[in-house]
């Protein structure tokens, strides 16, 4: 059954364009999506997903499942980096371990979007408030990662590099992508509450275009991901195993938590995908500034070069199979 789900996932435009991007690098075509066009797509997707999430959040209200899910999401983004850190310390120093751990504790918005598209193509419903969980899970892992550096490597850093809390909170909460997602969420909420006609007028932009832009962006992500692969080889087999094994492990915990929260299958999949995905936007930028001792090629090549493609192509349908098996359908 999972193989059929994987096939159904692979044959959707977003995943096909992702493959087309990967093959650009494989065939050495000179197709290129020049900067800053990927930034345009990425800003658009964050704005649109935030706005739509805000609108739906206003519709659903802050009902109990919303609040418990959000809390569980925060919990996961605190616990996952700790587990990762312990595993990574086997092979890496504190700086690298903390930076990679933070990336895996945080989330990937595009993986989330692809999971939503997958659910839509399968006709499985899900709730808008999951976007709130997405927005809220971006930052905490950064703080955990920086705390780990602070606690585990107090003496290895020059005095003037002792991190200030202000700086840490700033990097984690006011990172461009976090800020735009949260801001658009709020705007969507306010618009839905006070100016419903505004929601209708935004719909062609934030709604109808979304799928196409997603495809365009995934084409670029395919190129970028495939370009990371060589540096992944240099990083060694431990990291490669980690980049595949960890998402599966996190997905497993995620499914159990989702069951405990009695989430519906659609929401459960999104929750699992948040747990299983790793950040290549907010976390790397924060780590580059605050923990420059960590090798950026480690946390970027794993998250972008392996975990992201794995989740997009195989992970999402596999996690769906897992959800279907573990969470009994209640209609």
């Amino acid at each position, binding site marked *: 059954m999972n193989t059929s789900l994987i096939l159904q996932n692979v044959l959707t435009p977003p995943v096909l364009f992702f493959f087309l991007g990967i093959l650009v690098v494989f065939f050495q075509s000179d197709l290129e999506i020049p900067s800053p066009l*990927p930034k345009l797509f990425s800003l658009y997707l964050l704005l649109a997903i935030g706005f739509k999430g805000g609108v739906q959040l206003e519709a659903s209200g802050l009902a109990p499942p919303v609040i418990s899910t959000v809390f569980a999401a925060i919990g996961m983004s605190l616990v996952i980096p700790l587990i990762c850190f312990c595993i990574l310390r086997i092979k890496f120093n504190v700086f690298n371990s903390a930076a990679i751990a933070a990336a895996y504790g945080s989330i990937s918005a595009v993986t989330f979007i692809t999971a939503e598209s997958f659910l839509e193509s399968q006709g499985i419903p899900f709730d808008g408030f999951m976007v709130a969980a997405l927005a809220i899970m971006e930052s905490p892992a950064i703080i955990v990662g920086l705390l780990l550096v602070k606690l585990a490597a107090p003496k290895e850093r020059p005095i003037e590099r002792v991190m200030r809390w202000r700086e840490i909170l700033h990097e984690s909460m006011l990172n461009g992508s976090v800020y735009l997602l949260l801001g658009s969420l709020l705007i969507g909420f306010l618009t839905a509450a006070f100016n419903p006609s505004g929601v209708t007028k935004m719909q062609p932009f934030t709604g109808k275009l979304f799928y196409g832009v997603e495809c365009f962006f995934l084409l670029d992500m395919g190129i970028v991901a495939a370009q990371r692969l060589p540096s992944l080889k240099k990083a060694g087999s431990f990291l490669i195993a980690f980049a595949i094994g960890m998402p599966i492990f996190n997905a497993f915990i995620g499914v159990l938590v989702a069951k405990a929260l009695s989430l519906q299958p659609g929401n459960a999949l999104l929750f699992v995908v948040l747990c299983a995905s790793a950040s*290549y936007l907010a976390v790397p930028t924060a780590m580059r500034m605050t923990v420059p001792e960590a090798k950026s090629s480690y946390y*970027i090549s794993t998250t972008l070069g392996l975990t992201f493609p794995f989740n997009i192509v195989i992970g999402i349908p596999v996690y769906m199979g897992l959800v279907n098996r573990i969470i009994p359908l209640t209609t």
Partner: protein
Amino acid sequence: MKRLDLIFSERELDAMLKSLEKAEVPGYTVMKHVTGRGPERIVSEDMEFTGLGANAHVIVFCPEHNLEKIKAYIQPVLSFYGGVAYVSEANPL
């Protein structure tokens, strides 16, 4: 006059420009979206969208006596975050 070429990560640009202003340089020119390779890192254009940014290349034409002050300000930044700084001769046309 001296010509100073500074190349470093775009994310440190604001701090660097503030240092230059403190050193009272007569002006500077900034080129962003610059990529490259140093001893440790490869900086490539395709990662710009992530927010990691590319490098910035800053050119400063300044009198020699500015250099000491600039050096004091920016050396720690470059040694911690990476980047290079080179000086050469240049004269107004």
